[in-house]
């Protein structure tokens, strides 16, 4: 019987800044920022409505269905 191969690199679906995105399973927040060429400064991160601080970014790993917001400061009144 042919057994299905388990893929070596699994992915999961998140919502990033309101749009669906596929990322590597258990991707850390810090790795997500790197993959988007975003420096650690000038960006704040929220996962499922909760802030992920700079020190937490290496340890917090994304899960299926997570809603991620990456924000910065722009002009405003």
């Amino acid at each position: 019987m042919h057994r299905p191969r388990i893929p070596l690199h699994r992915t999961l679906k998140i919502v990033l800044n309101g749009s669906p995105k596929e990322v590597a399973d258990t991707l850390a927040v810090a790795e997500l920022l790197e993959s988007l060429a975003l420096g650690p400064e000038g960006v704040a991160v929220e996962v499922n409505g909760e802030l992920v601080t700079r020190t937490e970014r290496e340890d917090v790993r994304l899960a299926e269905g997570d809603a991620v917001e990456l924000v910065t400061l722009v002009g405003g009144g």
Partner: protein
Amino acid sequence: MDDPTQDAPLILGEHSLRSRLLVGTGKYASFEETARALELCETDCVTVAVRRVNLDATKGPSLLEFIDAKRYVILPNTAGCFDAESAVRTCVLARDLLGTKLVKLEVLGDKTTLLPDPVGTLEATQELVSQGFDVMVYCSDDPRMCVRLAELGVEGVLLNSAIALAKDPLRMAVAMRDAASAGRQTYLAGPIPKRLYANASSPMEGMIAGTGVHAKA
């Protein structure tokens, strides 16, 4: 004797500001114009908004490259928030970005008028204060609202569109600098008391013949 050119600083949380004019950074034609207007109006505190990072491939420069965070206190707003929860989340994100706990809170009630939602505003203020923020609150001129939130009285002026959308924004930046200063100096100086009747500024003595109230026409 009090020096007439000097004034007490405006204290906002842990910040001490020389200028009592706070200015927004929105709606300018370019980042260069924004930076120049801020320079000309001599403000010490500028507002910014918190928004999603642009993840498109074509990334341009960011506002923060044109505004010196050492020169200005950067004051994040909660523009676009229509409830307390999103306003609090925005402030938490802003504090992470800036390392400062001073925030400008707005909880909007109506998208056409942008008037505040007083209930949401109070809820957000209570929550933010409990989380250690120093909160500047956008509210209407409802006296009961003001009494609940802060002491009555104007300590400063905050504006954005009045400069950014003027015909000549840079010249208007200078005008607003002078206007805010004139208003403050007037307040400190104590304006001339109101009188019911006129009080001539020139002496009544030594008037030549033919002048004065009894002179013939």
